[in-house]
């Protein structure tokens, strides 16, 4: 597949997340947003059999694409499901252990995969920026067997200390920390996907671990945009840029409205070095 030379950071994040998805697993996503788009992209590309559950109680839908512009308010997003239930019911299924992977967007993440969607800057009582809250992210990150986070690689997002721990990763990283907090055993963060770097978690220390870096970036470049130091193994993989095919499906089928994939453009030259442009119109 020919690799693309221009795409947005969000397109890269969604594409990389989609590549991680496997057809025999059951995914849990919120209503709308990049995680849902990643699942839809994976279904269109390499894993048509993927089943997913949506926070609103929709179970294993087979939405016909192209997807509607305003997914969160569109009945079509629930179409051809095997069951329509409600929020508590799908949380019960996750609590019972039936949902393999939670896929979530994070505003701010720390070295142990804890993440924040409540506020940034200032104090809790006088926040500089107040966000919408964790929504379903806290239960999804606690109850699914594995959690994959999607976010941009920025120093203010990969922090030593979160302004607010909205949703659980490995907490303080100590053995059994999640169990001591009342969460099911054997669960936790699995991957963190950014536009330039892919992270996992170290089996022994549960600290975030760098797995792959985009060709136009480097380990140094990645670390320079992180407040904390991840585990860096001797060998770091190359994160292949989105292919034309991936972007084509994403742009024409998965998010034809362009609302979610809009972002900062990444433009590559022949040597696959990046020349960043100004943020695109409507960038989030």
């Amino acid at each position, binding site marked *: 597949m020919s690799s693309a030379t221009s795409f947005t950071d969000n397109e890269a994040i969604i594409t990389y997340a989609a590549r991680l998805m496997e*057809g*025999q*697993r*059951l995914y849990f996503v919120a209503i709308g947003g990049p995680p849902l788009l990643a699942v839809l992209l994976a279904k269109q590309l390499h894993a048509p*059999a993927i*089943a997913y559950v949506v926070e609103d109680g*929709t*179970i*294993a*839908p*087979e939405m016909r694409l192209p997807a509607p512009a305003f997914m969160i308010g569109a009945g079509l997003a*629930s179409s*051809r*499901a*095997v*069951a*329509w239930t409600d929020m508590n019911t799908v949380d*019960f*299924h996750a*609590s*019972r*252990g*039936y949902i*393999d992977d939670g896929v979530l967007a994070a505003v701010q993440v720390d070295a142990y995969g804890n993440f924040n969607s409540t506020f940034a800057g200032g104090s809790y009582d006088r926040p500089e920026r107040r966000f919408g809250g964790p929504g379903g992210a806290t239960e999804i990150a606690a*109850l699914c*067997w594995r959690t994959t986070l999607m976010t941009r690689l920025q120093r203010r997002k990969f922090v030593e200390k979160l302004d607010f721990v909205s949703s659980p990763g490995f907490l303080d990283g100590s053995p059994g920390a999640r169990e001591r907090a009342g969460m*099911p*055993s*054997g669960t936790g963060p699995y991957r963190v996907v950014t536009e330039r770097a892919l992270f996992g978690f170290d089996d022994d220390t549960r600290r975030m671990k760098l797995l792959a870096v985009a060709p136009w970036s480097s380990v140094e470049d990645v670390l320079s945009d992180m407040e904390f130091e991840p585990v860096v193994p001797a060998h770091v993989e190359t994160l292949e840029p989105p292919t034309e095919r991936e972007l084509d499906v994403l742009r024409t089928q998965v998010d034809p409205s362009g609302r979610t994939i809009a972002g900062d453009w990444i433009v590559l030259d022949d040597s696959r070095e990046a020349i960043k442009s100004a943020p695109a119109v409507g960038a989030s």
Partner: protein
Amino acid sequence: MMADTVPMLDRGQGEFRPPDPDAARRWARDKDRRLVDKRITEQAAVERFVADGSYVSYDTNVWRRGPSSLMREIIRQRKRDLWLAAKFSAHDATLLTAGGCVSKIDVGWMEVGRIITDAVRDGRVKMYEWTNGALAYRHLAGALGVPFLPLRFVGGTDVFRYSGACLIEDPYTGQPVCLVPAVNPDVALIHVNQCDIYGNARVFGPGLAPVETAMASRYVVLSTEEIIDTEEIRKHPASTTIPYYVVDAVVHAPFGCYPGSVPGLYRADLEHLMEFGAAQLNGAMDAYLEKWIYSVASHTEMLEQRVGLAKMQQLQADETHTEGYYT
């Protein structure tokens, strides 16, 4: 403000299956999430998913929309030492006890005659006292993946004393509240009106706790009156009661509740129920089991050789009320 400890005010002394939500999660983790054809015979389903010593929960019962054919197969295969959840059971528990399959029963309500009474008196069967609601609620706890649920009944009774319930001081109101432990059965046997080959199932009419029972259990075996196309399931997602990923086996069993009724499809066979009652009264249960279970190889054979087409058609014709079920 809340205290540092929550007083445990009282507790039942009954034996119960200890809840282990993490173990139940591991069962779920290891199930296949793909859409695979789960149709097998009643014989294979019982061989594979019902073991000696299994905790078995069925829904509803042999009188209404219950998995009668699967329970007969359990007897036919001479399973032993089962622990039954008799949450509004009927004569199913009697039948399984007569077949020598049962050693423990969590009792809500069940039909009791001399077979159960004798088995209890002789110590062949041990009863554990609960109520219909407490058992349904314990299944709900199991379905929620939590170790217990609070409730406002059972306390103050001998049922409480002989059960695994406990009474604590609610940390929020300071008032006493009962807790009951979750139950996660080894196998759920559920008779449904319709399902597809993957196990996406529909149950019509009011019921006991088919959803909780399916969600709580390790293995879920469905017997179904009818197998329908998945496209039909996807056209009407609101009609689905149980999603495919909890289901392990789909057994096609028309008249699967016989001699009971599946409302909207066929009436109960009152003659048969009287024959059963008489067999119990007259100590002729062995002959009954021989006639209806041991001497036939399968549910289909029983329908053909013991019930007969004419009787089946009569029971269907007698079920004139289909409103809300199939119309």
